[in-house]
């Protein structure tokens, strides 16, 4: 491919190829300060024109790589950064077999990790990003990588994908940590935020799980906190995993081990301060 950038995020090195320079330039700026990538990449990502003329005429970025979803729609070139993010996520979701992969955000403090999962829009990504600015170490806003032998959580601190209203919460962040504002993407308005320096510096440090949270955000929600039973946690985590079935017995053992290792809470909140306060309460 014409342009190439290699990136390492936690234990995963990506080789990213692109027909255009622009998405890789934005990516390189956002991922400045990340460590040297491995010489051999775990996954290859391709941002390529679906038809050769679409490199120049109404350029649209096809999301491809080692693993492909045949019906993944291309994105406009101005959303190339989002295309790169989606393509990297896709490789992990479809190809990762070294860890049990959970669609969840993780934060850590004092050597204890919290895993936060829930349906899209539940606010886990935003909550993790907020905690990352308030004394917690952000381990990842999208994927938790569970060690198949030790059950420890491995960080995957990619750039946080802030959506719609969440963007204004981070308006004060240093400009070099923010990506371009992407308007009218298929997921609405999006702006990427590079995690704090400690999240990047400590991206090779796993942490044991201390609690599982199922956050729910709603404007009219009463502040609430309830314990969640092991069976429900197990089923919800199977739904949050992209490779639970592919891992077979190891997937089952890892997930049941994880559920047995930590208490789980459902937390409801209507504003960010309540959310942070609830998390502090759980972790005490």
């Amino acid at each position: 491919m014409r342009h190439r950038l290699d990136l390492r995020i936690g234990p995963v090195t990506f080789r990213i190829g692109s027909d255009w320079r622009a998405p890789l330039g934005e990516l390189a700026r956002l991922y400045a300060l990340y460590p040297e990538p491995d010489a051999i990449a775990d996954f290859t990502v391709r941002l390529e024109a679906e038809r050769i003329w679409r490199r120049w005429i109404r350029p649209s970025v096809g999301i491809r790589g080692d693993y492909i979803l045949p019906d993944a729609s291309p994105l406009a070139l101005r959303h190339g950064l989002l295309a790169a993010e989606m393509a990297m996520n896709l490789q992990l979701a479809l190809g990762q077999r070294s860890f049990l992969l959970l669609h969840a955000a993780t934060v850590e403090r004092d050597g204890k990790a919290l895993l936060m999962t829930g349906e899209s829009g539940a606010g886990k990504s935003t909550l993790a990003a907020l905690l990352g600015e308030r004394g917690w170490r952000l381990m990842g806003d999208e994927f938790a990588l569970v060690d198949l032998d030790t059950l420890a959580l491995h960080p995957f601190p990619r750039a946080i994908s802030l959506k719609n209203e969440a963007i204004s919460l981070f308006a004060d962040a240093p400009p070099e940590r923010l990506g371009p504002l992407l308007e009218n993407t298929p997921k609405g308005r999006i702006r990427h935020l590079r995690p704090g320096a400690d999240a990047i510096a400590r991206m090779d440090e796993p942490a044991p799980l201390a609690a599982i949270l199922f956050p729910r955000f709603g404007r009219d929600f009463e502040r609430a906190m309830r314990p969640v039973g092991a069976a429900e946690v197990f089923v919800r985590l199977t739904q949050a995993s992209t490779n639970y079935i592919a891992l077979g017995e190891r997937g089952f053992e890892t997930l049941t081990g994880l559920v047995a290792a930590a208490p789980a809470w459902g937390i409801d909140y209507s504003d960010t301060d309540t959310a942070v306060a609830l998390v502090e309460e759980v972790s005490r």
Partner: protein
Amino acid sequence: MRDSHPLARLLADPASAERVRDWTSIFSMARAQSLLGSLAWRLEGQDLPDKAAVILAVARRDHDTARTQSLWEAEMARRALAPLGVPIVLLKGTAYAAAALDAGQGRSIGDLDILVPREALGEVQAALLAAGWEWVKEDEYDDLYYRRWMHELPPLIHKERDRMIDVHHTILPLTARLKPDAAALIEDSFILQSGLRILSPPDMVVHSAAHLFADGDMAGGLRNLWDIDRLVRQFSMEPDFWNRLRERARRHQLEAATSRALRLATHLYGTPVEARLAGPRPALDMFFERRLLARNGWGQATRPILRFAFYVRSHWLRMPPLMLARHLWTKWRRPKKPVSHV
């Protein structure tokens, strides 16, 4: 890497691993052609860079799990069909795994492919539907197309396990000019301990060659040719294998495909073959070889014109031209399915 030659070389000669400089490209090509598991087995014990060794170890473990799952799927089908008392012959990847053949080592396995007698199709279909399998395609034309012209039922998927089964009653479409002897395939099949069957060794090679050169557009061809290498290496130890292979290839009208498979396997993978059956290398083989290797180090498909030519050829092999025109017309007229975001 402009084509997949380096990957083929590595499969043929694992010791050449020490000369590989760009593992990332090797892995992308292997993944794109469903050969990562096979490569992982082939390179076991070689002195590799740490990261490459880790990626391949994970691929081996991943393949072990996938193999267990596919054998379980075969067992599920066996249980559903056992009351019928009809022979059930496993085909392709699941057969190689079930019989613990060398070809099964690391071999990717997708759908479950089985062969049953044509006259049993109706009751097989009914038994599978009763046991939880469902039709994948609801489209009436597709359904009719499969039933009238194809060598298999429309694909079925199990509603709980989410796994596909392809039920074949012969190994080439009914519309193809060549007419393999399906009854003989079943008659000569071997029964495994489970009660499921596999094709006889020569039929297995002939089927693999038919799949590669007499049907389809050679997508995934490098993997299928690797199957042929593994099968031939193992089976040619048996006495009289080459004569039996020749006899079966003739019987199924697949001599040309079988000879071509042997020639290309020996050319790309160094497979030991009988020169008489393989025959002299015609100029046309070069195009097949170029098509087989048409994928670069980024995992991208290359040589679009050659690919298109083989796509056209695949339809030509499958159907008389007028029938083809009618088929494509119906497909093109149909509205495209909407696409969704990841």
